[in-house]
């Protein structure tokens, strides 16, 4: 993490920053006092970067228990006159939305910027979602940066607008901006910060909504002139282009490069919109008047497209006939992310200018090689991951139980258990905490003749984020289900941020850990604790719990392999005795490589035996427990 650069007091210096780091820097330059978030890819580095410099910069940074609370914490600062930033991924905005859709009606007194980072194509998410609709839903301004430098400056602009209209402003980023790095020229850092004060002479409430809703609309209108004159909306190209490309966010990079590669500088104009809501109406009208073909290029849903068409509909009497190309016309795919190849193809088709395609046969040869020389590389739990062991124990327990138990899955590294790496044990995967909710619901169905046991897996961070209310519900309604808490003492998937169970907070200070066992006990359920690395014991324990009625909690506790790996080197050296290894014959059929599938293993085709990959194996020794031939030999660290 580029910690020293975010807080560097060198205005004008150009550094290499990740989009998220630029956003963090923009928040600092805007003079925030408070930053809060729950980790979520691709947003985690924003508050992560601020946490690293919190003490140095004298700000308060918090990894909150979930996104709703994060927004509430930030809002408290904002209604007391401070500037606050909150960051989340698309799903996090869904969690925070109940509060957001009230806060927008009460307004604030300082500045609050909500950064939402969408994940087009759902590369690291359970869904694909365009969060920009929240702007219209909540009547809040929304801005989209198109470069790294803009990511910083647009956040400062967002605070400016937020303070002016006394309401939240949303900044929407995507993976290709948030996780990409580029040159950013640093600006000045503020030297003072206001003292928080809540003016108690005035109350903050959305009631009655019939009054507060029009007020929200008014606030939005107040942003209008700042938006019309914003440099984040700009046009580049001929006065009357044959094709006008209207784009926002990451689409701008792709559009410019495709234009240059195809040599379309004299035919094609690019209108970049940084203020997606409200739209700079005058600018749009001005540009629409000078063309008859418009392509709208954006990530995920046709939000900008619909906004533009709305303006066109309102003013069409004074505008020419226009053909619109975008998601609606099928020109741009309506799901998945933009890419240079995609945009090149679209420009080529719309302009008739052919893509450069050499005759040398290279591309055919190289594409053909893909299949033969690059085998699929599926995601897998890291070597030494306790989740592999936990799912193995669950698999065995469910087989012995024989009643076709249903495991409801949840979000975290263990979400990968859905794949062969977790033996496909979880049968569902939805949102944070929904495994517990669904499992407890399923556990009420025996009254209809259901006989399948109900179980869920839930990470330690997920437990605090969302599972507790579902657990309270389960206990009170006497649901028959087993909650297995996979406690690897980390919010691992997103980068090891602390959570309320950790002994330290975001800023590195000592923090009283909230103990999972004590939370469970306070609900009247004494949890059992077991070590997933003791496979037989863990499987026996899961089995035993499945035979009991009511709500049961089992904590499978073992440290995340990556966290452990930072503290100590390999635990034990392991090798496989080929004399004993049965391999692919009847009696084993490659249990370790074919079923257990740890990346630390290898299959030696020439001798048909399993082997350990020394560069990858971390020496956890779990594989040694499953081998039917006792062929694994441990040789001490």
């Amino acid at each position: 993490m580029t910690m020293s650069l975010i807080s560097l007091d060198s205005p004008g210096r150009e550094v290499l920053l990740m989009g998220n780091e630029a956003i963090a820097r923009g928040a600092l330059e805007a003079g925030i006092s408070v930053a809060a978030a729950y980790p979520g890819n691709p947003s985690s580095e924003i508050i992560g970067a601020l946490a690293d410099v919190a003490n140095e910069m004298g700000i308060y940074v918090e990894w909150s228990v979930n996104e709703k609370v994060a927004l509430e914490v930030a809002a408290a600062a904002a209604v007391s006159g401070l500037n606050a930033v909150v960051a989340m991924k698309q799903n996090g905005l869904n969690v925070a939305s109940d509060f957001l859709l009230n806060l927008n009606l009460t307004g604030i007194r300082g500045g609050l910027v909500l950064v939402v980072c969408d994940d087009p194509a759902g590369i690291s998410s359970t869904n694909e979602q365009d969060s920009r609709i929240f702007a219209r839903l909540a009547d809040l301004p929304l801005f989209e940066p198109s470069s790294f430098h803009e990511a910083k400056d647009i956040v400062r602009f967002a605070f400016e607008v937020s303070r002016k209209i006394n309401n939240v402003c949303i900044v929407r980023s995507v993976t290709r901006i948030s996780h990409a790095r580029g040159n950013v020229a640093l600006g000045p850092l503020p030297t003072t910060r206001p003292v928080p004060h809540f003016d108690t002479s005035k109350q903050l409430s959305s009631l009655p909504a019939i009054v507060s809703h029009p007020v929200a609309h008014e606030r939005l209108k107040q942003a209008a002139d700042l938006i019309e004159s914003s440099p984040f909306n700009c046009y580049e190209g001929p006065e009357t282009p044959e094709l006008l490309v209207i784009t926002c966010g990451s689409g701008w990079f792709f559009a410019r490069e495709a234009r240059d590669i195809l040599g379309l500088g004299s035919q094609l104009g690019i209108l970049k919109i940084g203020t997606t809501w409200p739209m700079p109406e005058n600018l749009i009208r001005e540009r629409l008047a000078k063309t008859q073909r418009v392509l709208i290029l954006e990530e995920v849903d046709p939000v900008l497209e619909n906004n533009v068409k709305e303006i066109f509909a309102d003013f069409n009497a004074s505008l020419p006939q226009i053909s619109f190309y975008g998601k609606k016309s099928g020109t741009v795919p309506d799901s998945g992310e933009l890419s240079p190849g995609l945009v090149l193809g679209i420009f080529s088709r719309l302009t008739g200018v052919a893509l450069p395609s050499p005759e040398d046969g290279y591309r055919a040869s190289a594409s053909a090689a893909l299949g033969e020389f690059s085998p699929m590389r599926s995601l897998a739990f890291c070597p030494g991951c306790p989740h592999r062991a936990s799912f193995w124990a669950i698999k065995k327990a469910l087989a012995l139980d024989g009643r076709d138990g249903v495991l409801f899955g949840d979000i975290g590294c263990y979400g990968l258990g859905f794949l062969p790496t977790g033996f496909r044990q979880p049968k569902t995967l939805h949102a944070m905490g929904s495994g517990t909710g669904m499992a407890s619901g399923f556990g009420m169905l025996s009254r209809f003749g259901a006989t399948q046991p109900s179980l869920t897996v839930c990470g330690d961070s997920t437990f605090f984020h969302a599972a507790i209310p579902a657990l309270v519900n389960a206990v009170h309604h006497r649901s028959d289900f087993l909650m297995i808490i996979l406690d690897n003492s980390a919010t691992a998937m997103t980068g090891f941020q602390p959570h309320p169970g950790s002994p330290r907070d975001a800023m590195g200070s000592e923090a009283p850990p909230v103990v999972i066992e004590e939370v469970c006990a306070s609900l009247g359920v004494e949890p059992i604790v077991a070590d997933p690395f003791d496979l037989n014991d863990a499987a026996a324990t899961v089995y035993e719990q499945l035979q009991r009625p009511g709500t049961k909690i089992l904590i499978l506790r073992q440290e995340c392999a990556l966290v452990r790996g930072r503290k100590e080197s390999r635990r034990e050296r392991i090798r496989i005795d080929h004399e004993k290894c049965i391999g692919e014959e009847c009696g084993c059929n490659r249990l370790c490589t074919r079923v257990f599938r740890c990346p630390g293993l290898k299959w030696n085709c020439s001798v048909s035996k399993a082997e350990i990959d020394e560069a990858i194996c971390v020496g956890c020794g779990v594989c040694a427990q499953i081998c039917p031939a006792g062929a694994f030999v441990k040789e001490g660290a």
Partner: protein
Amino acid sequence: MRKDPFNVVVTGVGGQGNVLASLLIGAVLVDRGFKVTIGETYGASQRGGSVMSHVRISRAHQYGPLIPPWSADLVIALEPTEAARVLGQFGNPGIVSVVNTRPIHPVDVISGDATYPDMDALLGKIRELSLEAYFVQATEKAMELGNPILANVVLIGVVAGAGLLPITAQDVEKAVTDYLSPHKVEINRRAFLIGMELVKGHERI
């Protein structure tokens, strides 16, 4: 830099230090006054999946975070099948390939669902699809230094030693200090120098 933009793909398997490698390269070049854009795909990919960093280097212009198809100039591969994967999407007759030859078997191969290609055939294919190819036993060198993850910096050393990018040992020290931690400067400097040394006895077309 023989071309503007100069497009580099750093590729490997999640957990190999791919992101750090591209960051070090980018940091050095920004300090030298270049506009650098690095596009990554990571997150879940870290869990054993393929990772690619696209590094766009230009004197004048900030380019987008993804290289257009068939337009990379240099591929630095921490794993050989990942080199083939890059060449099949971003390669062209002028590309230079710097490849760590130690295989990392995907779980798909470990489990028997897929086969790992024959190494000679694979390296031969990479050579066929590149203008120049450097094959390096970077992991072995890194393990001699005590940690296989240093293979990434060994490869940067090879790239610098071959004159493919303007990077010196001092550059690496500064970048590690600014972007990583002062404690890690020495080991990374040594890995870099080992890489530079290797070029003197490298294998190429």
